[in-house]
């Protein structure tokens, strides 16, 4: 049963306003907001990977982001996690400056603090999120160390606790993730992302490339950690089944823009935008 958290009285835990990521200088045509057929300008070939993206994530909510490959989902996610520089826009995290300070305008040190204390990220490719030659516990400890942890015993205990929470036996905590299966690597990534009790968890295509039974395990895990850790989740996927199973609300992206938003059931059962209709009918 899905829970809806978009109560207007509740303040969003993460608010993104006018997020734009542009590759290229732009020209008079595209910079003045002229309509683009694709995400690149026909005159100057500037790519608008994300174009004026607005979204809110409420406490305890799972917000799904769907769209085809190249629609700007991952770019948006990585921009929020400061992996990519943002061209324009602002983002407000409840825990940072009481939700009034634009975190994109933060200093390098402040961004580091936000990344390490307030957000967790799980990448589609575990190689981006894990050090494959270090132990599973070491990978989790890295996040704790980055947040100032200097107690070996407590960090190891926390790593063991988190690995147990994602159903990895404590006996394997000294093994490097390169020895693990794809599903296990994703679970190590999830436990690493949860290490500092973040408010927001960013999941980028976490089930892509996994077989169905492993996918089901990871999805169950995400649902469970939302309840256990009370974390808000931004879930990027191009798999509508995953979105239907997990997301409370969903936004649909196309060519760097959000073209439709609403409750997940509403989006999937009664899509309004022609692209969303095409997407839903091609997959279901």
């Amino acid at each position, binding site marked *: 049963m899905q829970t809806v958290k978009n109560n207007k009285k509740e303040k969003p835990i993460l608010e993104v306003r006018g997020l734009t990521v542009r590759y290229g200088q732009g020209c008079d045509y595209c910079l003045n907001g002229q309509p683009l057929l694709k995400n690149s300008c026909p005159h100057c070939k500037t790519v608008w990977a994300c174009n004026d993206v607005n979204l809110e994530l409420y406490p305890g909510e799972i917000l799904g982001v769907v769209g085809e490959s190249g629609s700007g989902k991952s770019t948006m996610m990585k921009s929020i996690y400061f992996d990519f520089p943002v061209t324009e826009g602002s983002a407000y995290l409840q825990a940072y400056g009481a939700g009034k300070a634009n975190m994109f305008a933060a200093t390098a*040190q402040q961004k*580091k603090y936000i990344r390490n204390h307030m957000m967790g990220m799980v990448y589609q490719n575990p190689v981006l999120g894990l050090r494959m030659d*270090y132990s599973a516990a070491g990978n989790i*400890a*890295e996040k704790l*160390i*980055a947040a100032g942890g*200097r*107690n*070996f015993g407590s960090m190891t205990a926390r790593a063991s606790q988190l690995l147990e929470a994602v159903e990895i036996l404590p006996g394997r905590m000294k093994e490097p993730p390169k020895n693990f299966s794809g599903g296990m690597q994703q679970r190590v990534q999830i436990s690493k992302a949860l290490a500092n009790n973040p408010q927001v968890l960013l999941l980028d295509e976490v089930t892509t490339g996994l077989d169905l039974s492993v996918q089901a395990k990871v999805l169950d895990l995400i649902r469970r950690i939302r309840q256990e850790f009370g974390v808000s989740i931004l879930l990027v996927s191009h798999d509508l089944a995953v979105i239907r199973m997990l997301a409370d609300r969903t936004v649909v992206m196309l060519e760097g823009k959000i073209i439709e938003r609403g409750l997940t059931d509403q989006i999937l059962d009664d899509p309004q935008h022609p692209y969303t209709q095409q997407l839903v009918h091609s997959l279901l």
Partner: protein
Amino acid sequence: MIDQKHYNFAFLDENSKREIRRSLLKAVAIPGYQVPFGSRELPIGRGWGTGGIQITLSVIGKEDVLKVIDQGSDDSVNAVNIKKFVSACTGVEITTDSEAASIIQTRHRIPEIPLKKEQILVLQVPTPEPLRIVEPREAVTKKMHAEGEYSPMWLTLYEDLLRCGKIGISAEYPVLVENRYIMNPSPIPRYDTPKLNDSDCLYLFGAGREKKIYAIPPHTRVMPLEFDDIPFETENFTGKRCHLCGAEGVYLDELTDEETGAKYYECSDTGYCAKRREQGCRP
């Protein structure tokens, strides 16, 4: 001493010495920060102590007394050659007594006796960058130092403890200088690392091949990286003593008798050992 008509005092020309001194001043002003400098060619191969020699030649004066040691020994090939070279181009007095020396150039060891405030210890450094073991790119390590991003270094220590139960770094144990920069103390053993903290003397570090100079001024806080619950440990020589002078509680070299195969120990600092024997100390 070599002919002063053909060679400047202390071999290097005055402009070179001035540039190195300017780098030294900057290094002293920012303890633990690696200052780039224009490393000069010397009649010694790179990697044989050219960084240390350039510092020594830049700060040495006619009244100075020089001691050169290599792994604690006054008589190793490297130490003897450096002594001969500096003596030939400066004419300064050479000594093996750590207390009598005003400048001590060393590799791999810090003398046993506590150094005084008027003394300078010059250390030869092969790899000045402590983060090299976790990051091969110079541009990235510079950024890591600038941002104080030392998590990968701590993670390496964590991994050692997790997998082996102890930290496996024996020499070149990384230290945190004034709670700001992680620094490579040169390949001194762990035993010598605490001597860097709150010392009376000035420590200068030179890496000729890598073209870097850094320093620890007197009374600087220099702490080895350690976890809150795992204290830093040095080599332990409890129950062992020097077979020549009977010294205990000093850094000892382990040797093996070729005939009997028995292990015995002697002081790594040969000058210290010789002085004790002169004073009548016996095993």
